[in-house]
Every structure is written in structure tokens, then in C-alpha cells.
């Protein structure tokens, strides 16, 4: 087993499509941590994940997974990572038992006992065809398959989207258990920021192919804040200090990225803490600066 500090290192990666560019992005996922990768639909989350998994070739940049180049050591990396997609990638004709048989043949470290344990825990029938599973059951099956070959890195692309809160909570608990091993790391892309607020150690926010914010979740939340004021007070705020502002009939709410500085500069204004969801929404409107809901 090789030694590495970051489970994922993405340096200056560019991927060009017609009408979309993943623009020179860089971020790291430290070993033993869970990173929330957030952004609205079409922001570039899936393209980033597909690039790092070498599903699509990148135009420029470097990607290192588990301390190895993602192309040169592709086979070795893929033995040691697991991926959970938003939709179940298994054929409807198979059942859970047959999927176990397939993965047993594909992964050197596949563990039948662990897999059966997950099936039992998730109450997934072994003989029932996958086509007859509910969305929650399908996602649980995918997670059971992902966690049964001792993967060191778990990559999830919108895995909790469309699931009810009970199933989501159950799945998040599984991820926290998985992280008990300090060698395990997770990259979790989602636009359900409440999930990430619960479990993520760090967050990266992407919009229109560009990384806007990346860092430890607590620091990101601590640095950002919302200035609440009247429209008259808002006109006195330096536009350079704000990300964007929501203008309502009753006043203005402006997002700042340096809460401490804003607190000193605008002493008389109400400065409130923010959430990941608000950060996402305010950053999305950064170009128009002012918006109303």
C-alpha cells in the first residue's frame, strides 16, 4: 500500500466540451476525510468526477488518486476505489445475489460476508430482480456493492438525490461508519447541501466549470456571512465587499466572504451566519450582483 496525504489531488484540470469548459480547476481531498462537492445542475460536478475517474480524457492538468497518477495506475486505482452514481448502473434482470457473483469475479478483495451483511442490514432480498426494487433499495444495493471490496476511496455522484429523508439519513450513517477507518476518504457530489453540512469535513463549490470556494467546511461557514440591512444602507456598502445581494421589498441581504472584516467595516448592520445552501445561491448570482427571489 502506497503512502499518500491526499486521497484526491486535482491540479489545473481543464476539460473542454462544446458550450462548456471545466476551467483550470484545482482542489484536494485529504486522506481520511469527506469532501462535499457542491454546485447547481450543470455546474461541472459530473464532468469533474468523470475526469478524475478517467471516464473522459482531460485536455490539461494532473489528477492523482490515492497517491498515483489516474491514468498510469488506472487498474490499481480502480481496485481500490468505489463509485456510487445517481442511478443504478445494473441491469434489471439481475438480482442482488447475481450482482455479488459478478463483483466477486471483478474485485480481488471482494468480501462476500461484508456484502451479505449489508444486504441483511438494508433488508434487500437476494433473489428479487433489481427491476422490482424501489429507488431507495437500488441506491442501497449500489452502496452495498461499493463498500464490499475494501475500497479506500468512495466517490459519489449525486448519490442521495431523489431519496427520501429516512433513506438519506440511513445512508449518511453508513458513510460516517465507513470513515471510522482513517484510510478511507469520500468525495460526495450533491446539490443537497443539508446532507453535506451534516457530514462533510471540507467543501468545494463549483459553478459554470470554475471552482469558487474550496476549504474546510467550518472555515467556509465561518468566513461567509449575510449582511441584512435596509435598501438605503445597502447603497453604502462597497460592492467589492459582497458576493451578491438579494433585494426584497423589505430591504437587502448581501453575502460577504470575509465576515470578520465586514463586521468591523459595517458595525451598525446586522451580520448573520450563513449556510452552504445560501453560499451556493449567492455565488451563483455573483455576476449579476443583485437579484430578487
Amino acid at each position, binding site marked *: 500500500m502506497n503512502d499518500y496525504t491526499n486521497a484526491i489531488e486535482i491540479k489545473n484540470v481543464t476539460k473542454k466540451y*462544446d458550450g462548456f469548459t471545466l476551467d483550470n480547476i484545482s482542489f484536494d481531498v485529504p486522506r481520511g476525510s469527506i469532501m462535499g462537492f457542491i454546485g447547481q445542475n450543470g455546474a461541472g460536478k459530473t464532468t469533474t468526477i468523470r475526469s478524475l475517474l478517467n471516464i473522459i480524457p482531460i485536455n490539461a492538468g494532473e489528477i492523482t488518486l490515492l497517491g498515483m497518477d489516474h491514468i498510469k495506475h488506472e487498474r490499481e486505482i480502480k481496485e481500490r476505489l468505489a463509485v456510487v452514481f445517481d442511478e443504478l*448502473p445494473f441491469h434489471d434482470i439481475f438480482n442482488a445475489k447475481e450482482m455479488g457473483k459478478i463483483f466477486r*469475479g471483478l474485485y480481488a478483495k471482494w468480501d462476500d460476508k461484508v456484502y451479505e451483511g449489508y444486504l441483511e442490514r438494508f433488508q434487500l432480498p437476494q433473489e428479487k430482480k433489481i427491476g422490482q426494487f424501489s429507488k431507495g433499495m437500488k441506491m442501497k444495493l449500489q452502496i452495498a456493492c461499493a463498500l464490499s471490496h475494501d475500497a479506500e476511496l468512495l466517490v459519489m455522484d449525486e448519490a442521495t438525490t431523489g431519496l427520501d429523508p429516512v433513506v438519506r439519513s440511513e445512508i449518511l450513517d453508513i458513510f460516517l461508519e465507513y470513515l471510522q477507518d482513517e484510510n478511507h476518504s469520500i468525495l460526495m457530489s450533491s446539490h443537497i447541501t443539508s446532507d453535506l453540512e451534516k457530514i462533510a469535513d471540507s467543501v468545494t463549490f463549483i459553478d459554470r466549470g470554475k471552482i469558487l470556494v474550496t476549504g474546510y467546511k467550518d472555515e467556509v461557514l465561518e468566513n461567509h456571512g449575510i449582511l441584512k440591512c435596509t435598501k438605503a444602507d445597502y447603497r453604502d456598502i462597497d460592492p467589492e465587499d459582497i458576493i451578491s445581494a438579494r433585494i426584497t421589498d423589505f430591504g437587502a441581504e448581501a453575502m460577504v466572504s470575509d465576515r470578520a472584516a465586514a463586521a468591523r467595516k459595517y458595525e451598525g448592520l446586522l451580520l448573520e451566519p450563513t449556510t452552504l445552501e445560501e453560499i451556493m445561491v449567492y455565488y451563483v448570482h455573483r455576476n449579476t450582483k443583485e437579484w430578487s427571489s
Partner: protein
Amino acid sequence: MTLNKIKILVWREWRICRKTYLSSMFSGAVLVSFFWLIRLSMSYGNLAPVFAESELLAEFSGLLYYMSAAMVAGITAGMSADPSALLADVRANWMRYSFVLPVSPAQRSVSIYIVRFIKYAIGFAITAVNGIVSAKANGIPFTGDMMWFFAAVYAATMLYNLLLQWFYSQARTVRQISAAQGKTMGVLTGLIMIYTCYKMIIQGNNNEVDSLDVMINSLREKFITHENIIIPLTVIVLIAAPLTGWYFTALHYRTHGDVKEDSQPKKRFSFGLKKGKDGETV
């Protein structure tokens, strides 16, 4: 481990396509049985008083001897190039998922070709049995050249398969994969039409149409006359076509991940093809 991977991929591939394959083979068997029933009826059944001593019976026997074999070969070839497993993989998102598994494009391609060889082997065995039985029943000698005739038919179907595989390797979308068979048939039909035009117009071959028996015998004679070329060519095609096809398949698996389709497929006229999960988000 590599062998295990290929073994499990073969099992998976076969599990997906076996139902379609076996039902198609069954349909083919029903069709061939229908001709056999007519043939038996002409000799021993209600049609015997009219056809038992006729020339038509001889022609029909020839038809059974060659054409049913060609038909079985055709069905086998068609099913060997069956795109349903490939389409099912794309639609079930397995195609995308397979990129994150520790298997190489070459291993996936090998597993597909092993399944195809299984299909070919079954088809060839049925063709040979059909040939032996029809030869016996119709009093036609079953000679070695008949087996080479079958092999040549299979080689031709492998070339069809290869062309189809090339179109698959170029396809990046579900729609393009679905269209690959149509394109292959279009190219082959075009080639046959050009050849026919050449024979009929340029060479002015406007002879009267021969009887079926004469046509089949003349085909067989031509085969025997040119067997010095046809047999080596068949062997080359039987070896080279799957290898090249394997390469195209591996290429397809290597490059298919680079798919970027409209999230909202444009409305356009289609021949009733179901819309697949074309949309991919970035």
C-alpha cells in the same frame, strides 16, 4: 484474476443476451421446421399425389439443403451482432459504470467475442446437423465442400459483423448505436446493387432466370471451381474478422466514455425507436 474477470464478464454478457438469442434461434427453428413439414408432406403427406414424382420436389429438396443452412447461418450471424446487449449496457448506465471497474477495454472486448463465438458455435453445429439431415433425407451426397460452403457463409456474416462493429466503434450515443445496423445494411445493400447493376447493365447479362435447382447447382459448381481461392480466403476471414472486430470493440469501450449529449434530446422524426437515457448532465 484476469481469467476470472473474463469468465464473469462472459457469464454476465451471456445472461443478458441468452433469452433474445435462444428465442431467435427457436423462431428460426420453427421457420425451418415449416419448410421441412412441406417437404415431408410433398413426399408422404397430402401433397404427395401431386409432387412426389415432380421436379419441384427435387428443387425444394435443394432449397432445404442449401437455403435452410444459409438461413440458420444468417440468424446466427444476426444474433451474434445483436446490439441489444450493448444498448442495454448503455441504457442501464453499465457502460459508464464499467469504466470505474478494474477491467480493461480489452478484457471487456474479449468477453463479448467469447459470447459471440459461443453463438457462432451453436449456429454452426445446427447448420451442420441441418445439412447432414437434409442431405440424407433428400438423397444428396453430403461432401466436405458443403462444410466449406457453410464456413464461407459464416465468413461472410463475420464480415457483416465487422462492418457493424466498426459503426459501433464510431457511435457515441444510444441513437448512433441503434442506427449502426441500419447503416451496415445500407452499405451492404448498396454494394449488392452496384454489383447487380454491373452484371446486368455493364456486362449485359440478361439471361432468362434459371430454375432454383439449376441456380443452386450452378452456385455450388462455382464454389467448387473457385475453392482454391474461397477456402483460404474463408480461413483468413474467419481468423482476421473476429480479431479486427475485437480491436474495434476495445476501441469502442475505450472511447465510449467521451459522451456529451443534449440533456434534452431534440424532437425529431424517428422510426419508432424508444428514446434511451440519452441525456447526460455535465
